């Protein structure tokens, strides 16, 4: 079947803009706040937020990327290992406010690994989570996001795919439903 568009290009832009203002509400001018994107797909959300936030605030904000490959709990449970991406945290996170940024919040396992990976760099004052898409009712772990772009109720057999201009030609979010469960 045809994939269903959950958010089109314009809606993605609007949603990200709303998330920016929500972030500013809680973090003022971002002097003590760092945004950290998850590799490999969360960094696209982060890049867009960064551009928008800097435009609104009129000054640069600190950002980094984190790769969680070595902290995953499914090592040796999948057929092939994942080749890691780059972690880019060349600043001190001690006593800073961290906002973790990812595209889709699903089981919560990525976030669990991310927290683990993050704490190897120091002891932040506070860690929050921002996600573009929240797949509600699909959590394996007790993890919730502080900032949510869009919430979807999905079956476990369904897939949510976030596409970006850089890799897929257009910013948009799809929901794929397998044929069997659609009948």
């Amino acid at each position: 079947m045809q994939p269903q568009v959950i958010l089109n290009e314009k809606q993605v832009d609007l949603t990200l803009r709303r998330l920016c203002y929500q972030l500013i509400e809680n973090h003022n001018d971002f002097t003590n706040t760092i945004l950290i994107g998850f590799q490999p797909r969360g960094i696209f959300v982060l890049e867009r937020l960064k551009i928008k936030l800097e435009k609104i605030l009129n000054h640069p904000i600190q950002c980094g990327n984190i790769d969680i490959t070595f902290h995953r709990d499914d090592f040796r449970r999948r057929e092939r290992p994942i080749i890691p991406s780059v972690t880019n945290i060349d600043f001190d996170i001690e006593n800073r406010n961290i906002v973790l940024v990812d595209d889709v919040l699903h089981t919560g396992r990525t976030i669990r690994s991310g927290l683990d990976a993050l704490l190897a760099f120091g002891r932040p004052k506070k860690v929050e989570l921002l996600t573009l898409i929240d797949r509600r009712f699909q959590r394996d772990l007790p993890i919730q996001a502080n900032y949510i772009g869009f919430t979807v109720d999905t079956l476990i057999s369904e897939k949510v795919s976030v596409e970006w201009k850089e890799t897929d030609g257009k910013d948009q979010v799809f929901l794929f439903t397998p044929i069997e469960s659609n009948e």
Partner: protein
Amino acid sequence: MEKTKYFFLHQLNRMNNLSIQHLTGIKDLTPEDIEIIFKTTDSFKQVINRPIKKVPSLRDITVANLFFENSTRTKLSFELAEKRLSSDVINFSSSSSSVKKGETLLDTVNNILSMKIDMVVIRHPNPGAALYLSKRINATVINAGDGAHEHPTQALLDAYSIREKLGSVSGKKVVIVGDILHSRVALSNIYCLQKLGAEVMVCGPTTLIPKYINELGVQVSHNLREALEWCDVANMLRIQLERQEISFFPSFREYTMQFGLTKEILDSLSKKIIIMHPGPINRGVEISSDVADSSQSIILNQVENGVAVRMAVIYLLAAKIER
């Protein structure tokens, strides 16, 4: 379902698998394997430069380091790599064990394996020891040097260090100087560098160059200056006295005069070459102190990269262990 497949592609692109189950020698690796190991090494290098240099990936793996031959660097490097991946480590060295009481290699190893070991790192004076074990035991085997045969992780870290310093290995000219005949580092390096597209030359006294080395597709030189003028990288090897039962050259002094690398020779070359050494260094024999400590030497980078490369090898092979 067809359409749902494609959006996993970005994940699939990032997944990779080695073609091997055990690392017994570079000879069995494909160039793609080496590239996967190097990419993973890049990430582990980042990890070991963090405040907390440890990741939890191998929490459920136990590794036995079996050293039937002396070693400092390799043993420490492997142990550190294993610990930084959070695996449990047990160490064994033959000097303080029942091997002295006449136990066979297979018996020793099987006894250790009955303690539920997942992976074995082995160094042994006999060529083929790692391969022999890999065919007989139910654990992943990593060769940490088998006699004068292979020392795969050393070759990988040497090639990785060249790649790090010069950007790539392909098209580079590397000369290996010294005791080629008794060196496992030389053989593994030749295989590894050639697989990555480098040109290799060996240089040393006629008695220390194996007779059929040409069949490996390497050039041979008996003149150090000529070899150094040709190369981008010089890998200086130690004279392996422990493997020499007869005299292969009249004296160390004569060897040093002909094949010892001094600052004078290095400075007189038309370009700046990179100096490597797998260690242990015999200062004043194959390499003079001022060369070993010069800015052109990447000997200590090799040691640092050794931990990261071994982490990558252990990580990628551990991924293939069935639960």
